[in-house]
């Protein structure tokens, strides 16, 4: 068989493994990528042929996801996390060391085809930054010295898992995980991390009718923990009431909000609690299938999670007639993502589960009515489902003892940045931000990012506000910046993140975020003028009001809140008042090329207004 025929046969085999099912496109293409190091033209043709879809459908998926590539990649792909926190913790030096050791720039592959160097947004390791992904293996706490040793070792032994010489705490040391990742649970609260009777929540739920289960969750006032905060009980109720079936429960474990890593710890330490919560949700809404959408960056947890699912099937906690309840059949599969932030948005996540580009869908219809494959679907965050299981176990009143009027219970915070003790904190809703800062040892906080870059940058004057939906809502990300940090640079960096991660479907988000960044960078160069501030405010409002999904509806928030709460930083950037030429128009630079080509200087002295004698030398093109 020629090479082309061999490729075809291999691709066919991969497709067959996934039932030649086009909704499993992401799995198929991930496997092709792993097998060949990229998805070639021939492979795309073959996948399209076998799964019965158009070639462009395959190509659009390949081009959408960061972890898929249509050009050959090195045998070892090193992805440097370019998150702001990693940068604060020394990523520039680490990146320089990688470039030096490998002799290539970011985005290049070594000539022997061995290494590829790439950048990737937050990989959920902010508490142990700077971190990189070496294929699927997470390497944390890097410094230039370690980079040298790592590259040396990889040249000697190309298996990245050999880089893990010391495993992290808890299940990070499980034989199926074996990661150097540390959990850093700094404050184990009562809801998530207390000792409990396994499956008590599920047993209690199965004693009740599905309606009663939903009632319990509603009474607990549990709201979604991914950031948006929609009441969980109502979501379940809508999905249960929706016509048609089968119904689906999807767990959103695509935590991509920069600075968030709580779900990673839950998946590592509380997978049973999560799957118990999913099973309860399935019982409540009448779902027969569940999907755990695991972000591609957490692929190292996959085998472990598959193992936990297998154990549960063996124990009768998944499969037919769960815990002996006739007619309650439910199972869970894992869908691995492939590096896309927007897939954390629930309709984009559904698109991704269906094997398409992670484009958000129009709403209505909401997923509760028409979600995965057009069927009623409930999408919940990892933490939400864990909490639901505990609520069924202990009762809604128990849960409501913590929190505020509209924010019941506790919240997991992922804290990173300029503080002594970065990590996971379970705190009751309503805790003051200043108390959180004391807990994590942030002594010189000049600004705190609450809720990630789509949240709010809080100024010291507001540190007494409380973490809750009423005041400072957050999906869990808290990033501390000390008073020496350049906040406008940070805003600009986060805008670059949104620009990269925009799916490109709607203009306000695709174009608007670029314009925001350009104008802020202009201000940072000292070329701004007062009217730019008004322009930024207006543009931010337009993007928020007219974008199609949560990405564009929240991406200008940092600009908006810093213009309000850190206005002096912007004012300090204003150039000379705009009486004559705009500060952003550089006449000297605009003339440079012309002067060189023509061979004489401008006859005008642009700094003064007097005219200068000119120099004349003929020039030849």
């Amino acid at each position, binding site marked *: 068989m020629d090479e082309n025929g061999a490729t075809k046969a291999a691709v066919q085999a991969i497709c067959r493994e996934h039932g030649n099912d086009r909704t499993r496109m992401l799995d198929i293409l991930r496997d092709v990528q792993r097998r060949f190091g990229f998805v070639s033209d021939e492979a795309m043709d073959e996948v399209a042929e076998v799964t019965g879809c158009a070639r462009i459908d395959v190509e659009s998926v390949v081009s959408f996801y960061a972890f898929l590539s249509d050009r050959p990649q090195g045998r070892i792909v090193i992805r440097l996390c370019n998150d702001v926190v990693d940068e604060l913790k020394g990523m520039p030096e680490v990146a320089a060391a990688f470039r030096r050791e490998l002799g290539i720039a970011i985005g290049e592959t070594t000539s022997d085809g061995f290494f590829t160097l790439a950048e990737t947004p937050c990989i959920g390791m902010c508490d142990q930054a700077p971190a990189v992904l070496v294929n699927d293996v997470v390497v944390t706490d890097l410094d230039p010295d370690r980079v040298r040793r790592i590259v040396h070792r990889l040249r000697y032994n190309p298996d990245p898992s050999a880089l893990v010489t010391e495993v992290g705490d808890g299940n990070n040391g499980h034989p199926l995980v074996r990661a150097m990742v540390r959990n850093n649970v700094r404050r184990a609260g009562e809801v998530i991390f207390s000792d409990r009777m396994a499956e008590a929540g599920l047993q209690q739920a199965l004693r009740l009718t599905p309606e009663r289960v939903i009632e319990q969750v509603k009474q607990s006032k549990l709201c979604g923990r991914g950031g948006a905060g929609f009441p969980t009980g109502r979501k379940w109720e809508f999905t249960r009431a929706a016509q048609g079936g089968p119904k689906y429960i999807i767990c959103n474990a695509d935590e991509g909000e920069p600075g968030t890593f709580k779900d990673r710890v839950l998946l590592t330490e509380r997978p049973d609690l999560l799957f118990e919560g999913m099973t309860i949700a399935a019982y409540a809404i009448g779902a027969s299938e569940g999907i755990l959408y695991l972000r591609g960056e957490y692929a190292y947890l996959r085998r472990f999670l598959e193992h936990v699912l297998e154990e549960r099937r063996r124990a009768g906690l998944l499969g037919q007639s769960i815990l002996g309840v006739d007619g309650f059949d439910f199972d869970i599969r894992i869908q691995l993502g492939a590096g896309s932030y927007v897939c954390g948005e629930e309709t984009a996540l559904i698109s991704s589960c269906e094997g398409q580009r992670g484009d958000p869908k129009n709403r209505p219809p909401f997923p509760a009515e028409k979600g995965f494959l057009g069927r009623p679907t409930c999408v919940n965050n990892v933490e939400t489902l864990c909490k639901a299981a505990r609520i069924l176990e202990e009762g809604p009143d128990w849960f409501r003892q913590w929190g505020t009027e509209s924010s019941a219970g506790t919240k997991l915070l992922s804290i990173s940045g300029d503080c002594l003790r970065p990590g996971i904190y379970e705190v009751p809703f309503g805790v003051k931000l200043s108390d959180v800062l004391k807990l994590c040892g942030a002594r010189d906080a000049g600004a705190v990012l609450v809720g990630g870059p789509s949240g709010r940058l809080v100024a010291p004057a507001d540190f007494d506000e409380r973490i809750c939906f009423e005041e400072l809502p957050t999906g869990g990300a808290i990033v501390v910046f000390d008073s020496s940090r350049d906040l406008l640079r940070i805003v600009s960096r986060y805008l670059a993140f949104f620009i990269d991660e925009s799916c490109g479907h709607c203009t306000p988000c695709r174009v608007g975020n670029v314009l925001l960044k350009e104008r802020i960078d202009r201000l940072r160069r000292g070329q701004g003028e007062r009217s730019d501030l008004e322009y930024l405010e207006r543009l931010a409002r337009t993007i928020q009001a007219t974008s199609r999904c949560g990405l564009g509806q929240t991406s200008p928030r940092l600009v908006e809140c810093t213009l309000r709460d850190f206005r002096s930083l912007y004012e300090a950037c204003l150039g000379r008042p705009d*009486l004559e030429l705009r500060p952003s*128009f550089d006449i000297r630079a605009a003339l440079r090329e012309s002067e060189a080509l*023509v061979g004489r200087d401008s006859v005008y002295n642009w700094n003064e207004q007097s005219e200068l004698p*000119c120099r004349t030398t003929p020039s030849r093109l």
Partner: protein
Amino acid sequence: MMETVQEREQRQLNRKPRIATASLAGCFGCHMSVLDLDERILELAELVEFDRSPIDDLKDFTGPVDIGLIEGGCCNEENVRVLREFRKHCRILVSLGDCATMGGVPALRNTLSLQECFREAYCDGPTVYNPTGLIPNDPEIPLLLDRVYPCHEVVRVDYHLPGCPPSAESIWQTLTALLNNRPLDLPYELIKYD
């Protein structure tokens, strides 16, 4: 007899509003559109006085001006100087037409390098005879900018009137609205271009 301070102030209060116009990197089409006002140009002459403008051939400002109309974007340093003069002298500056607003046809060259433009214009163009291959560098010829800029990227501009050219009617409506200090509400037909 010497004019008193009060008399001078009174004279300035009574004086007609002043208008200035210029065509930068444009085709004079927008100015032709001003002439399209036809008999209303007499009415305009009643309402205002023209300062620096090709219409009266005044080459310099005689003093402060109320409204400046700019046709065309900036393709060379001379344009920048004129535009800067306008910004200095005009209380309200209006970008008149598409070239002033976004560069227009001259900005087509923005996709090419300046060197390519020179080569085509002075060396390789089908009608060019230039055996020396020299490109003109007389100081009388203004230096080109690296690209064509819309006016608002060079100076602050208060209003943009789109159109290629804007119709006489929309110019008339704009001027009378500005002169009478009332809001401008152009009907859809006047700002619809396809």
